[in-house]
């Protein structure tokens, strides 16, 4: 197993995440895509830590997992709140930021 393979995997995961954010409308899927991208970054950090023989990267990756867990709680509660107010999780129909009169 060479480090390149890990990096390729990370790039693929990141790309899937990007495309998911841009193309999918379900907020849960969008959230999953974001998580996927974060994980790919974690993977890169861990890989480079191993290559360099420096534990700093690994520690940051571990801290990030903790932060992501906290963030997941906030994200999910936001999505539930949005669902309660708008009765939908389709991001296309949540356009409160746009000019109201143009509707």
């Amino acid at each position, binding site marked *: 197993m060479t480090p390149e393979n890990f990096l390729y995997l990370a790039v693929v995961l990141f790309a899937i995440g*990007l495309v998911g954010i841009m193309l999918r409308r379900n907020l849960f899927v969008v959230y999953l895509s974001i998580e996927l991208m974060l994980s790919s970054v974690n993977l890169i950090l861990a890989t480079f830590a191993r290559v360099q023989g420096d534990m700093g990267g690994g520690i940051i990756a571990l801290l990030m997992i903790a932060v992501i867990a906290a963030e997941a709680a906030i994200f999910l509660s936001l999505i539930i709140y949005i669902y309660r107010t708008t009765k939908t999780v389709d*991001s296309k129909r*949540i356009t409160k930021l746009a000019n109201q009169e143009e509707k």
Partner: protein
Amino acid sequence: MEVLLSLIVILPFLSSMILGLSYLIDEERKLGNTYYTYIAVGVPVLITLFSFILIAHMFPQSSDTTLYAHLFNWVSVGSFTIELSFMLDRLSLVMISFITFIATLIHIYAVGYMREDEGFGKFFAYFNFFLASMLLLVLASNPIILFIGWELVGLASYLLIGFYHKEHSNITAANKAFIVNRVGDFGFIIGLGVLFITLEGQGFSFEAIQNGIGGLSSSTLTFVGLMLFVGAMGKSAQIPLYVWLPDAMAGPTPVSALIHAATMVTAGVYMVARFGFLYNEIPDIGLFIAYIGAFSALAAALMASFERDIKKILAYSTMSQLGYMFIAVGLGAYGAGIFHVFTHAFFKALLFMGAGAVIVALHHEQDIFKMGNLRKHLPKTFITMLIATLAITSIPPFAGFFSKEAIINHAYLSENYTLWVMAIFTAFLTAYYMFRLIFVVFMGNVQREYSKLQPLGRWMSIPLIILAVGSATVGFLGIGHGFGNFIALPDRSIEDVAHNTEYILMGINITVALIGIVLAYRLFGTLATPPKADIPFKVFIMRKFFVDEFYDRLFVRNIRGLSSFFDRVVDAKIIDGVFGGLSLGYIEVGKLFNSFQNGTVRHYATYFIFGVSLMSLGLLFLLEVK
């Protein structure tokens, strides 16, 4: 003395401000006429006393004594200053003495005339304001201050002509006066500007101008003299800028008496006399002024001969007398010109006040052919007006005789025989139309029932009597060139003539006047019929030489056409097109970007990713990563 001199100008400005403010604050009209009367008449009385004190002070001193009252420096740039200061020499002394005196009488008269008017306080605020401006004009020590006074009297005249502002025609008349004067003032200010530039900062007081004028070329002087006279044409109602004066009669009669007969309209004559040293350098322009004066006098006399409105007859006669004054000052007889200003102020104010009394008595009837036989009903008015008429037709020993004779004789003696003939013919016409007025209004066998004539109050009759005494006697001041020697203006001298010639000339003047009177009696003494426009010549005169129509075609319509062109084409199409197009462009561009801001999270995320990608690429280039 200096304090008195400055108070003469300051007090009426103050009183007009007080009157104006009281009138504005007192919306419910609780302040009675008495309050306004005390201030409005008190101040002119006071300044008349001041001016008499100044006469007593100046009289014994030598003729070139000049009193200055310096208030403050208005403009001060480097070595150049414009002072607000007043100058009292013999010329301005004469001017302020009769202005304050006659203004006081007319103020008193106006209290009676205006007593039932709602805008009593407003009227006197304007009236005092006019008085102050006129005094500022004649006492100014430099042309700039003179010009300020010149403009302010124009403003006061505008306000007072349009005083009965509920009728549209009065407003039109006021606008006409203001606009025609503006044409004249334009010339005046050009003249002053050229004079100022060519003098190259040697100071701009009258004294400095007099000293510096020797260094100017004669073409410059000619231009300046001509332009200044354009201003005088406007203010003093001479051809071709006279059209506003007859219409100005729309104002209350005291206004016509004070502003459009006795004082403001003579400002042009005063100005020419004040710049006498300048006009002495350019006698050709002087001759031009004299001819303009003669033509104005003649044209006005012709128009007056066929007019029916009592006030307009007097307006034309004012214009005619102003023409005489310009003949005098144009030929360099400044003393005679100012003397005629002086006597004219008395009898013309009296004529207007008499006309006002008639108009009030007949409940605002102004057509003389609807009057007649009034001498029994209004004896005081009849006698005073008769005296004034005798004065204006230059029957000795009334005031007008001395001043007018001096002018007509000067025209003869300076060998301008054309001018002399015109002046004599005008004198004949003057006698004719003035006595026509007297015969038609006061005599005649017309049995007319007048419904309840308004009696003449004491406020109105006393000024009439005082002015009648004045009109009968002030002429004696001119005997033996007394007035001219006193005022000591730089007259262009003419050869002395034998007494015989003078007596013959005097005889001609009196004869001509008598012929005019007799003709008027033959035509109107017993039976008065209104003039009919039956032959072309009469039509021509009765339509005022078609001058109003001509100006309407030439200026008013063209300017109106130009305005509507600008309104419809330039403004609506070009200017609005440019700005409309610009704003339309902004809207379109806004719409273009609007579609990006659609509120959809996915799209925002896309922009975000593009942005971050671009920034990353940029960083790669910047850091030169291979």
